[in-house]
């Protein structure tokens, strides 16, 4: 395997990290009427880890995706290592020394792990147009072992692995050829604690090598811990770059939001008594290959948290309650004895579900905000089966505005919205339905502080109104901050249960997860 020698060049230039590696000048991008990136100029040095932060829709992903050839550059120019950079696609960007790990699934189903790693760079293994699969697998396995991911087999189909392992494969794919700049776009939200540690190690190694990482994340804690400097974007505009050592989380939040953010982030109360009234009983629920013999009860006005590593089965528990799993056994019963065995019954009986996989399972991306919001309530809005379109629009408008969705109107398509606003549409839908039991899987995944705060406040309100919430989350602070009770899962079974307590720590939970 030719380990592209030319890509190692910046390593020799490493002298304290003051050489500008990337210069972005007047970068601009418009999508229709949305000015996603507005005249952004910034410089990034060789050998630094640069955080890139901003709320949803601030333009940070668009900016980095232009750098990586995913979007065409709308205006302005990039200069990388003295050379102008205009990548037309990701492979060109790769060849110029820019690689990206994206937020959503970035591997291709139906190919092996090795084929994914070398996708677009198969030439070293081609002889007269014939692929030497053995050599490719061996090289991929060598790389995987080198990264410490030896348990992943290069010759396996990628589909055999879960979301997190696929992310690890993507990390190898993006970094094995030693890019000058690695963009990490919200990758950590898809990773468990272990996976994150692996990623941080790689980030540190790249910096030590005199190369550069652009680190995009909503988790400020993480950004503060792993970057040298931080650039802030707001509404597509560049706010400024700050040395990590000289700034604070609160200051950054102010720059991101453009106003003060209170410290009341999670709910503040402790020791409140949760009602004894049981609203939902889950008895001995199993889904082959996912979860086995899960039993618990949910009380009125309770926020019940589910935590664990991403593959522990907790996400399947959410689907099982909503009767969205295939092949579920065991029973899910409401207080009045109604068994929940299909989704329409679940919805009619006031259960709501939001999926971790927001774009495929929660919102209908290629549909208007209006039709997304009215979908479960459509029977209630119809008069003898006849729909009044004005009534539907008014309904959707009310709940979208209650959720403060940033939109041009309810006829706007969901595909135009940022992650946080998509989630607002999902929540508006269930708010409109008036569901009493909400199963929220990763409700704040990939969402910025402003919206996160709003979602936490909404959950607290709902709890006080006597609604019950099951919150499945990979974010331990969120579980500790919001839940009345936390169930921890491991390998498809319940491994521990904790009551709300200010003394409860992340370590207590992690101990039951691994």
């Amino acid at each position, binding site marked *: 395997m030719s380990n592209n020698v030319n890509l190692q060049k910046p390593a020799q230039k490493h002298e304290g990290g003051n050489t500008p590696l990337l210069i972005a000048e007047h970068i601009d991008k418009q999508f229709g009427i949305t000015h996603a990136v507005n005249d952004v100029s910034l410089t990034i040095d060789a050998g630094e880890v640069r955080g890139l932060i901003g709320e949803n829709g601030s333009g940070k992903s668009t900016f980095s995706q232009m750098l990586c050839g995913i979007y065409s550059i709308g205006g302005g120019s990039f200069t990388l290592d003295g050379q102008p950079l205009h990548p037309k696609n990701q492979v060109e960007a790769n060849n110029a020394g820019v690689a990206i790990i994206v937020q959503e699934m970035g591997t291709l189903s139906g190919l092996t792990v090795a084929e994914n790693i070398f996708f677009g760079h198969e030439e070293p293994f081609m002889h007269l147009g014939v692929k030497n699969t053995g050599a490719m697998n061996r090289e991929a396995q060598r790389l995987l072992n080198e990264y410490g991911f030896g348990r992943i087999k290069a010759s396996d189909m990628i589909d055999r692995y879960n979301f997190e392992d696929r992310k690890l494969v993507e990390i190898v794919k993006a970094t094995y050829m030693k890019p000058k700049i690695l963009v990490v776009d919200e990758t950590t939200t898809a990773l468990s604690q272990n996976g994150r540690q692996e990623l941080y190690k790689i980030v540190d190694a790249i910096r030590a090598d005199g190369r550069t990482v652009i680190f995009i994340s909503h988790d400020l804690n993480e950004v503060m811990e792993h970057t040298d400097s931080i650039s802030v974007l707001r509404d597509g505009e560049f706010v400024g770059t700050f040395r990590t050592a000289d700034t604070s989380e609160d200051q950054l939040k102010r720059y991101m939001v453009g106003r003060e953010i209170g410290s009341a982030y999670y709910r503040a109360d402790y020791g409140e008594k949760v009602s004894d009234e049981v609203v939902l009983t889950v008895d001995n629920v199993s889904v082959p290959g996912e979860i086995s013999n899960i039993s618990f009860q949910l009380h009125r006005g309770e926020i019940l948290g589910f935590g664990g590593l991403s593959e522990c089965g907790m996400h399947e528990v959410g689907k099982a309650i909503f009767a969205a799993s295939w092949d579920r056994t065991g029973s899910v019963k409401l207080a009045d004895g109604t068994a929940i065995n299909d989704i329409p019954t679940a919805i009619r009986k006031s259960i709501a579900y939001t999926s971790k996989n927001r774009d495929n399972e929660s919102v209908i991306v290629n549909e208007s905000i209006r039709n997304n919001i009215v979908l479960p309530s459509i029977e209630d809005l119809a008069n003898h089966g006849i729909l009044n*379109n004005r009534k539907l629009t008014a309904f959707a408008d009310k709940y979208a505005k209650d959720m403060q969705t940033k939109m041009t109107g309810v006829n706007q398509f969901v595909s135009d919205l940022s992650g946080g606003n998509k989630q607002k549409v999902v929540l508006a839908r269930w708010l409109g339905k008036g569901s009493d039991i909400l199963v929220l899987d990763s409700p704040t995944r990939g969402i910025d502080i402003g919206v996160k705060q709003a979602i936490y406040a909404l959950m607290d309100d709902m709890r006080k109104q006597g609604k019950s919430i099951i919150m499945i989350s990979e974010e331990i602070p969120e579980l500790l901050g919001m839940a009345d009770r936390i169930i921890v899962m491991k390998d498809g079974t319940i491994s521990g249960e904790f009551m709300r307590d200010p003394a409860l720590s992340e370590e207590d939970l992690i101990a039951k997860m691994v």
Partner: protein
Amino acid sequence: MQKNNNQEPSKFRAFLSSDTFKGLLPFIGFVVIVVVMNILTEGKILTPKRIRLLLSQVYYPMIVATGVFFIMTLGSIDFTEGSTLGLASIVISKLSFISIPLAILGGVLTGAAIGAINGFFHVKFKLQSFITTICTMFLFRGVCAYLTTESAVPASTEIKALDLNWLKITITVAVLLIAWFLFRFTRIGNDVKAIGSGETAARFSGVKTDRVKFLVFVAAGALTGIAAFVNVIKVGSITATAGSQLETQILIALVLGGLPITGGAKVRFSNIIVGTLMYTVLNNGLVMLGYETQTQQLIKGIIFLVFVALTIDRKALKVIK
């Protein structure tokens, strides 16, 4: 790269890729095709006699297209219309000697049954509609050929006497009105569009996806049965080629009418009407210009490709279910 982009062309390009323009495109295309055909045929296509002839060819494709419109909105596809029309026409012709209402009922049931078979395999076995309906198309084409090997199947003189314009217009308009009402003012329209735009998310929002898909296939089959009745009263006897290539004609018509081939939320009911009219004008014009069948197919193929390329929603691009 495009540093000094001046505003004019970029605004124009934005307009060209906007949904407004894509929505207008079929209407512009219709006008262009009518004008071009009118010039090429030296005004012969817009004579009252020609227009009457054109309209007489519109009825049954428009009824069939209404059913296919719902199927394609789901993001699915159906290749069985031609064979369904053929088979239903044979049933109607045979039953027309007993009683005409019975014949109509028989035709509709035949169509619905074929739709149910398609829907069953598509929904229960999770077979793509593309695969399912190609298989059933061969199956029912075979049945049609078998039933018409000896001789063409004649219909009774009573049913042929019903070849009245007002009747055909009434049936077509009624079908369109009912379908428009269902599409626009009941949850069926919303459900069908939601499934086309994102099936899993629709299911997780309470749409009974399997049931809706099955019923749409049954309804589309039944509509083809109604179309078969209109066909029988017009042609009077059914040969092995009845309804031959109807499925591709409908597909081309709907796409010409602006229906995104991926289905979903961006479909418009007007796609059915504009598309069918456009296809009929195009077809007639090519015949009048004296092109051979092969050349006609070639030209239609090119126009179809250009239209798909212009109207397809690349954001929603995925394999047709």
